[in-house]
């Protein structure tokens, strides 16, 4: 069975396809929910898709870098990374951990896609692992941006900026490439566990993302189903942790040498 592609681009072995023609009004946002610490991005992105009843319009595949996975939903095969949209917001939702060998090509492909498709903003949602997450009543949220325009999205929200440190993983590459290519990339990072799924941190990210996007994403159900979400995402978390270890995620605990 092959996907009925409407549009397809190949970026260094990564195939990004759209199976229906869509029009995303301006200002347009591409939300990235890649599996990372605490699965914060993945949990946030999937909750957003479900709550807002977003429509699937395409996917991301790689016969070179991804494991040979078909995601079966309602008896139909889907790509391991799925694209959803509603109004001016598109969301990238992976169902697999990003293998270390796919990090660079996938990150570059996402930046290329965002630029070619004309997205005004790329918003990366993720967790910042902290060793004392267990003792935090409420994780804190930080932001980081590739441009002044992206920074303006959170200007009124009085959030703390991530000022000094190391970022590791696909979001780090996307941020650097966004600076180079003048793409507006905003990162939202919530304190989280490195190795346990964290729906509470995902809820914190979604509350801020709602304000950035000007839409209401209800997190009540996310918090009510937190325990069930943690049970359902154990294996994704295990695969993600293995991938994080191989990509050197532990560097995030390190202080930059030229710390000011």
């Amino acid at each position, binding site marked *: 069975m092959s996907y009925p592609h409407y549009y397809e681009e190949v970026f260094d072995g990564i195939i990004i396809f759209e199976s229906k023609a869509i029009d995303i009004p301006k200002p347009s946002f591409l939300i990235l929910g890649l599996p990372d610490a605490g699965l914060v991005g993945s949990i946030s992105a999937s909750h957003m898709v479900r709550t807002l009843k977003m429509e699937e319009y395409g996917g991301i595949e790689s016969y070179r870098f991804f494991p040979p996975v078909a995601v079966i939903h309602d008896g139909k095969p889907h790509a391991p990374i799925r694209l959803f949209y509603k109004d001016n917001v598109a969301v990238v939702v992976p169902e697999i951990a990003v293998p270390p060998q796919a990090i660079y090509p996938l990150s570059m492909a996402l930046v290329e896609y965002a630029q070619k498709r004309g997205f005004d903003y790329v918003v990366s949602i993720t967790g910042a692992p902290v060793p004392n997450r*267990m003792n935090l009543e409420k994780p804190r949220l930080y932001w980081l941006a590739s441009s002044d325009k992206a920074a303006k999205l959170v200007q009124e929200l009085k959030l703390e900026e991530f000022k000094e440190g190391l970022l590791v993983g696909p979001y780090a590459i996307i941020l650097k490439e966004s600076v180079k290519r003048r793409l507006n990339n905003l990162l939202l990072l919530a304190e989280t566990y490195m*190795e*346990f799924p964290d729906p509470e941190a995902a809820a914190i990210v979604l509350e801020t993302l709602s304000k950035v996007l000007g839409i209401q994403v209800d997190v009540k159900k996310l918090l009510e189903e937190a*325990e*069930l979400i943690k*049970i359902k995402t*154990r294996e994704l978390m*295990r695969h993600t942790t*293995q991938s994080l270890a191989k990509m050197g995620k532990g560097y995030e605990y390190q202080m930059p040498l030229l710390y000011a």
Partner: protein
Amino acid sequence: MGFDELARIRRRLRELLGEYETVFDESWSELRPMWDVDGTLEPLYSLYEYSDKYVVVVDLPGADLSTLSVDVKGRRLVIRCRLKEELSFIKWGTIQREIRFREYVKVIELPENIDLSKFDVERKDSLVVIIIGKRI
């Protein structure tokens, strides 16, 4: 070949064997599900080493922690805990849709130098923290 050289080779062989076992365990763990047909679930956990202790943190979401049991048999830490309610996922996979999940079970191999005279279990929300002494 002197004793120092032999000791160095022996250490290196141990390291290589350890690395091989780690790679094998990782590969094997990727083939092994975190659930079983007998209705048990495998929880996520982490093992941390400190100068004077080991700390095992286990995530048990949805568990009835009043049924938690933590035992050490030799070097094996055995954790069991029933879920608050049985769970089933009726649209998932093949055999999975028929299973009623009811309990977490996890067996963790501990290092050789544990000191069971220091042993404590704490709970924080769905996390269970097991502190085990270390012979220095």
